[in-house]
């Protein structure tokens, strides 16, 4: 149990630092940045206390917000995906999830990709809607959401592939 807490604390700090110091300054093609800090939320243990999980996600978002001076946009987006995660899990993994036996290290690649893609798209859409905060710029919101999501999905999948433990 302690090792799980340690791993996740470590992951929280590393992902947050990596996000604010490196990944938010990529500005690919001028404005495209990935936000793979939400990998923390995506890979959070399945058997969890829902309240603590949502609180931690809020805290993670707020940390990113503090560094990037973005008000509460990351906090709002993170807490939303933490809230809807169980439904998306059920949708993408189906029966495996229902039996409470699945682990992220040994699921099918296809369903993992679906799971990541859906949550990342939702997160980025909320993020950019709140950041731009102007409904007349819906095209800009969708464009940013799409490009950043592709970037984030690639980074998240790569990270999980590189750091997966081979049994």
């Amino acid at each position, binding site marked *: 149990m302690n090792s799980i807490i340690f791993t996740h604390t470590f992951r929280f700090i590393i992902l947050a630092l990596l996000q604010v110091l490196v990944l938010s300054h990529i*500005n690919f093609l001028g404005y495209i940045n990935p936000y793979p800090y939400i990998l923390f939320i995506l890979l959070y243990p399945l058997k969890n206390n829902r309240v603590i999980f949502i609180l931690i996600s809020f805290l993670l978002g*707020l940390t990113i917000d503090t560094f990037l001076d973005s008000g*509460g946009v990351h906090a709002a987006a993170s807490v939303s995906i933490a809230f809807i995660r169980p439904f998306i899990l059920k949708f993408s993994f189906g029966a495996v999830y229902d039996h409470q036996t699945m682990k992220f290290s040994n699921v099918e690649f296809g369903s993992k990709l679906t799971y990541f893609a859906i949550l990342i798209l939702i997160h980025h859409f909320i993020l950019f809607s709140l950041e731009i905060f102007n409904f007349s710029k819906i095209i800009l919101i969708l464009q940013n959401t799409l490009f950043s999501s592709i970037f984030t999905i690639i980074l998240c999948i790569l990270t999980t592939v590189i750091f997966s433990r081979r049994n």
Partner: protein
Amino acid sequence: MLYLLLFSLAFVFTIQSHSYHKSKFINSANFLSGGIYNSINDASEYLNLRTQNTLLQEENNQLKSILFNKTDTISKTFIDSTYSGTSYKFSPAVVIKNSYSLSNNVLLLNKGRRDSIQQDFGVVSPKGLVGIVDKTSKKYATVISILNTSSRISAQLKKSNHFGSLIWNGKSPYLVQLTEIPKIAPIVVGDTIITSGRSSIFPKNIPIGTIDSFNLDTSQNYYVIHIRLFNDMTSLEHVYIIENKDANEINALINNTNE
């Protein structure tokens, strides 16, 4: 329930960050994020020393040419001995966090209340306008960049005195927009735009950029002018903070008149 509570809390922070000078808690001018950015910047500033040196040299060159071509004003006698003639005080600072790809960009400087920096001081770079100080902590200050959709700065044409507000439409970090210039103003592509000195923040004649293109707004009475900035907002390092020592007096006077 908890979700709704936290989401609305985050939403409130967001709304606050969109209204000028309202965001109270969440900003990077605290000791933790400021400290981390500062130590990272200590290391990374070595990487672009060469370009920054060139920039500073250019500025020195410009200042020298002004100094040596200046007519003698020192020998004139001041009638009022308490009035020194300088109401603007400049102090140097370093940008330790730059940002230009969001729609509300905020910079972080390594000077704060300890260096008597306060809200609403102006920030300029050797080449032109940068922004206005927003939040300050003991050692750090955040700056609302001109690349921020909530920023409004008074600017004018250099060759005539027509003035308007400088805003940003959130698209390109090289172009800002000047609105409310009346249709009657003579404007040509390539003309220089400077600060107007009509606010208590910036002195007059700080260069901003040149006219890139212009068109009439929907009411057909005012121009919307796209301005290409002199500053490269994507690589800022050394900047100057401007304090207007008369700002309190001016603001008090304006408030009195309005009441």
